[in-house]
């Protein structure tokens, strides 16, 4: 009975198709119509510009803390391109590219970061879940959604996102283990952007790759160049195909980089070098995709200029709409339960009396008066 190595059924693979110089592996290049290539390029550009504008808004104090996704556009956009409208999209919090692709109006995204539930309210009929703040907790409901699709036999799949840091959470483990047991059609994208706030990837886990965590659940792991939208689409398509055929979940590690701050409350200079950031600059997913669509003749310089202008205008219009939004201050009472129970009716009465007493103005502990005029119009 000599000591023997166990041959594992699972393997971990690496996929990259479009490199930073625009070279393409023709054997793996996914088929995408020119029209879709244009739409994808526009979407990626929109995500980038949206992020930049949000950082400005934050500096101007027009929204709250903001968490940009600069540099992660391909990792987030590719996977949702590979699914249908009726499939489910389950984001973490760094997927504006995917969220916009799924059809969320820009104003909703702005309003989320402005502190409004309206920004967490999916558009009509959308099979999308809003931003999830507690790291990795979304893996669980993503697994449930995918399993639900299987039980309902509606042919749907779910694409969900989690960060590298999120793989340390128990919810990641339990969710993926259950998804694998139940054969749930779930594609989990780990956006490995190398950092969990200030914790580098190496200190989050001692494993060589994040993709290999799939082996723990009896799955194959894929490590994909996350700044390569073609590879992301290729890998997700394969996983979606398998999932639809009953082949169960897939874990895709998208290797990318958080080019910006964790959030605007954070100063990355405290924990990482400019050199590291510089290394990643040439790997920019947008620049790379531009080389590809340009070479294909799908988007010209001119198209691009026009696109950029349209996008800026769209964002400006969305900001204007967002800034006109006035929340109804009574909504929290209306949406705690389907029907307001007696104790909340009483507390609502108390709340209204308070709003009335303040004549639309309330003072804060730090002495800043805050105008409630916008609220009082809802009182009658």
């Amino acid at each position, binding site marked *: 009975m000599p000591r023997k190595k166990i041959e594992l059924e699972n393997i971990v693979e690496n996929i990259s198709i479009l490199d930073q110089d625009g070279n393409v592996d023709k054997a793996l290049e996914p088929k995408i119509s020119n029209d879709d290539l244009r739409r994808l390029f526009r979407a990626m550009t929109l995500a980038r510009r949206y992020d930049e504008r949000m950082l400005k808004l934050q500096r101007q104090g027009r929204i709250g803390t903001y968490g940009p996704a600069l540099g992660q556009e391909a990792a987030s956009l590719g996977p949702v391109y590979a699914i249908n409208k009726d499939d489910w999209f389950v984001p973490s919090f760094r997927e504006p590219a995917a969220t916009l692709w799924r059809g969320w109006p820009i104003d909703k995204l702005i309003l989320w970061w402005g502190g409004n539930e309206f920004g967490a309210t999916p558009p009509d009929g959308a099979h999308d879940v*809003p931003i999830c703040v507690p790291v990795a907790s979304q893996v669980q*409901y993503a697994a449930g*959604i995918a399993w639900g699709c299987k039980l309902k036999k509606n042919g749907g799949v779910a694409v969900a996102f989690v960060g590298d840091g999120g793989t340390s959470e128990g919810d990641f483990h339990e969710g993926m283990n259950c998804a694998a047991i139940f054969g749930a059609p779930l594609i989990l994208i780990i956006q490995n952007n190398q950092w969990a706030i200030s914790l580098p990837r190496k200190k989050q886990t001692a494993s060589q790759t994040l993709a290999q965590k799939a082996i723990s659940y009896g799955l194959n792991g894929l490590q994909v160049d996350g700044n390569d939208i073609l590879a992301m689409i290729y890998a997700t398509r394969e996983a979606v195909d398998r999932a639809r055929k009953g082949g169960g979940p897939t874990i895709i590690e998208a290797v990318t980089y958080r080019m910006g701050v964790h959030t605007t409350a954070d100063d990355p200079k405290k924990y990482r070098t400019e050199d590291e950031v510089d290394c990643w600059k040439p790997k920019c997913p947008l620049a790379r995709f531009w080389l590809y669509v340009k070479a294909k003749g799908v988007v010209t310089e001119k198209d691009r200029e026009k696109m950029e202008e349209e996008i800026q205008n769209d964002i400006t219009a969305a900001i204007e709409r967002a800034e006109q939004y006035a929340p109804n201050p009574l909504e929290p009472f209306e*949406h705690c339960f389907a029907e307001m129970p007696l*104790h909340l009716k009483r507390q609502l009465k108390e709340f209204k009396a308070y709003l009335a007493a303040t004549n639309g103005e309330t003072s804060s502990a730090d002495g800043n008066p805050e105008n409630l005029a916008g609220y009082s119009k809802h009182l009658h």
Partner: protein
Amino acid sequence: MAQLTMAKALNLALREALQEDPTTLIMGQDVGQDEGVFRITENLLKDFGADRVVDFPVAESSIVGLAIGLCFTGIKPICEMQFSGFGYHGFHQIENHISRFRNRTRGRLTCPMVVRMPYGAGIRAIEHHSESREAIWAHLPGLKVVIPSGPRNARALLKASIADPDPVIFYEPKACYRAFKEEVPDAPESMEIGKAQVVREGSDVTIISYGASMRPVLEAADELKDEYQLDAELIDLLSLVPLDTETIMASVRKTGRCVVVHEAPRNCGPAAEIIARIVEESLEFLEAPIERVTGYDLVMPFFNLERPYLPDATKVVLAARKVVNY
């Protein structure tokens, strides 16, 4: 009409739910092949199949976490935590998401699920199988907390909880599962969540309780009547959220005296809330301080010592007499 234990009555409610509503699904550890460690899911796997009655791995956070996702796809999950003592593993999913999705999405994504949890002491079980923590769920906005006390209301309330559009923590007094039987009508029966029951009328003192503690309360009421000629009015809350303050106030205004009884620890427990509400609405009717007969603010002792640490008839009688003789 059949004489059923609470275990059988709950099983009946689950069976009816699976029959009536094809979107329902039962999930939990050992609920299928093994029919539940308390046999609450007896025969259900056999009759409804493995897609409706799902044996789940040992991962409580996932039981409730995956249930959220099922809800979004139009499935109605009825989750079983094997013991409430392990429900805490899923606390974050319940606090962070289940209680919040309706508010977060202004009603677009909701979690109309039931989480059944056997709670409480009295069955000589090992550690973590005997505490009562309903107050922590009652404290979380967005959850309903329902606690039956007998076979008939258990069946009706479970049916109502399953039909409810909001998440319900359904706390089952495991000591009552097989302790006694009751007539349970054959026809489906439901009950409004949030209505307490005056289970005995009386004029000398109001005794408020719920769940497993109703039994010592009933015993105490007999003793108060027989030994001390005191007529206690007994209120069975049946749900902590919503709390039926109207029934409470009507009784306390009548008797002017009140005892609240539960197994849960005292500090920030349900009795504290009930007392606060009485003070807010009926202070002027109070003729004596309100007594709390509750678990002590202690870790529940291992079972060889648990008996004297639980509310019992003697404690309730002592408290009621103290209140009356004030």
